[in-house]
């Protein structure tokens, strides 16, 4: 198998004018969809799937794939500017992205975000090109024990989130876990905290809670501190002298972050079901533990934004591997792509790439081009987005309320979820005011159900024995990597640091 021959053939298919046009449309639509809170890649794909009917399958799939990773680029913009993640994979990007914007570095943050997305996406495609067969082995070595361990690894980020007041942080996370148990129990089918309501059977959906807690909660808090009265200024007193472009230092300090984020993100993305959220969280906590100044994370550290951004884009590329090599959709978004394949009469499975080389390699080649297109679009669009934070807060505030509300509604056309978003907004304000951690709550809400289901499946399989985690090769790998990330790397960077900063970090 000559990989480069295949790739060249793919390029020759992707680069036809009509396919390039589809790719461009897909990239733009994906970005727009990603920017709106509530719309993630999967919602965007599902909405736009019908548009591709009647198109030639190669062009259509290239366009759908571009919407998918384009939405990953756009999703971070509101995380940085408004502290409102549009989907779970960009929650981690708010941790340092929004503080950066508040420090007056919104421009550099957005540019670095686009660069990080580009690096993550491109490294992801390179790895698909050369290592797809190898990684299909990775995606077939994960069962419930490994998912449980992965969820636990994601939860390590909670430790970072909980921060200074551990009691309140832990209470926040526990509230998230508690909300995560609402709904019908997978194993027994018994309703938990549903109180007979059909609306609660499905559990509490993540999007309205996240948009409310972060977006509205932050907004109310800003009014509490009186930001709307601060003359003509926007979210920050944007310094006209401040550079729009990232400094050389931004690039230099984050170049290894990008490498780590890309590889970590891709590997986690390859695992069906784990995906971009866990990847971005793991990248964030990894970066913090290897950092020379972990105490700066959460206050607007560029590496804290770059890490999750590279990782979630690399993960969205990685998720193509189980789809292309096994026919298993690893996420809601790739499931829509799978459905699209099947609608065109293609049968994804282990023989897919062999039987449809033009389509498979055309798609892979188009992902290189798509990432380049998205980088260029981002760079051009960023000056426009930066204008947002120059809008006076007393005008921007009400508009943010409107966008959060209508964005939340549009996901499931649900009034209940819209009201839930308002309730979460009010609770989020008090949490912020009294030192609780909304981020810990949201992450626990995402990871809790995953951990509970996987643990109960694991214990059923092992007849109640915990030894199963030590008997499986993949589990041992995860445990090993966790030990390195949590114990070895922080120790190493601590020794490498001057003693003064080390003491400061310990407080």
């Amino acid at each position: 198998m000559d990989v480069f021959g295949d790739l060249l053939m793919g390029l020759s298919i992707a680069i036809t004018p009509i396919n390039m046009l589809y790719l461009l449309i897909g990239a733009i639509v994906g970005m727009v969809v990603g920017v709106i809170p509530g719309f993630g890649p999967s919602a965007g794909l599902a909405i736009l799937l019908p548009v591709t009917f009647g198109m030639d399958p190669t062009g259509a799939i290239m366009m759908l794939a571009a919407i998918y990773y384009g939405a990953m680029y756009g999703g971070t913009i509101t995380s940085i500017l408004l502290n409102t993640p549009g989907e779970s994979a960009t929650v981690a990007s708010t941790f340092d992205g929004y503080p950066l914007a508040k420090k007056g570095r919104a421009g550099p943050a957005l540019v670095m975000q686009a660069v990080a997305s580009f690096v993550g996406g491109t490294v992801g495609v390179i790895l698909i090109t050369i290592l797809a067969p190898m990684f299909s082995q990775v995606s077939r070595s994960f069962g419930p024990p490994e998912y449980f361990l992965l969820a636990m690894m994601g939860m390590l980020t909670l430790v970072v989130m909980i921060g200074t007041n551990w009691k309140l942080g832990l209470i926040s996370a526990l509230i998230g876990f508690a909300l995560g148990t609402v709904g019908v129990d997978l194993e027994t089918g018994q309703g938990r905290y549903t109180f007979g309501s059909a609306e609660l059977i499905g559990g509490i959906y993540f999007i309205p809670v996240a948009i409310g807690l972060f977006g509205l909660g932050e907004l109310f808090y800003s009014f509490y501190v009186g930001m709307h009265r601060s003359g003509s200024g926007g979210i920050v007193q944007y310094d006209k002298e401040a550079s729009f472009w990232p400094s050389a230092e931004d690039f230099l300090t984050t170049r290894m972050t990008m490498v780590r984020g890309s590889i970590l993100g891709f590997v986690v993305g390859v695992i069906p079901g784990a995906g971009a959220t866990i990847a971005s969280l793991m990248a964030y906590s990894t970066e913090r533990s290897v950092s020379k100044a972990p105490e700066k994370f959460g206050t607007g550290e560029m590496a804290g934004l770059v890490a999750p951004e590279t990782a979630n884009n690399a993960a969205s590329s990685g998720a193509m591997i189980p789809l292309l090599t096994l026919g298993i959709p690893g996420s809601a978004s790739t499931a829509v792509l799978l459905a699209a394949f099947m609608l065109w009469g293609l049968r994804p499975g282990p023989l897919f790439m062999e039987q449809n080389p033009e389509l498979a390699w055309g798609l892979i080649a188009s992902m290189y081009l798509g990432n380049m297109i998205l980088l260029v679009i981002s760079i051009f669009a960023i000056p426009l987005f930066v204008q947002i934070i120059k809008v006076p807060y007393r005008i921007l505030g009400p508009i943010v309320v409107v966008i959060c509300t209508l964005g939340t509604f549009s996901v499931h056309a649900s009034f209940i979820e819209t009201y839930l978003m308002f309730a979460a907004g009010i609770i989020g304000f008090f949490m912020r005011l009294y030192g609780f951690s909304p981020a810990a709550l949201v992450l626990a809400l995402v990871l809790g159900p995953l951990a509970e289901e996987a643990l109960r499946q694991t214990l059923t399989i092992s007849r109640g024995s915990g030894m199963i985690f030590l008997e499986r090769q993949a589990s041992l790998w995860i445990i090993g990597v966790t030990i390195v990330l949590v114990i070895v790397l922080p120790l190493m960077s601590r020794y490498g640091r001057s003693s003064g900063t080390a003491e400061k970090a310990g407080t």
Partner: protein
Amino acid sequence: MRIAFLLAVLAGGTYYTYVAFADLNFLTRTGRLGPGFFPRSIGVMIVLLTIWALSDALRQGRGDQADAGRWRDVVMLMALAVCYAVTLRVFGGFLATVIYLAVTLAVLNRGRPVQNALLSVIVPVVIYLLFDRVLNASMPPGLVDILPI
């Protein structure tokens, strides 16, 4: 207020824990971890930690008394948001947004009636065009259809 919020968390946590013990089984009939395993563990931890945090807060006393002006603005904004949620159900996404923006901007952005009026119309129109025409996504329908869209 901090104490009131912690008491509210404690009340919610206690109720959650009560339901976990009353309605949900710790183990299934075949002896696996049941639907109540996690809720009971989580609930007990919430209650204990909240009591702890509450005792800390009581010991510190009520240090953070904010001035009434700050609260007035936040409470007003929350009230306006709740009104928006209600009008959304009644008038639908488009009209409710026009009303909400007109009222909120009139309060917050005083003395600029032309700017406010323009914003109250342009923002909903742009959102409507983007959601309904381009993205084919749903806007909240109203109980009373006044506008033919």
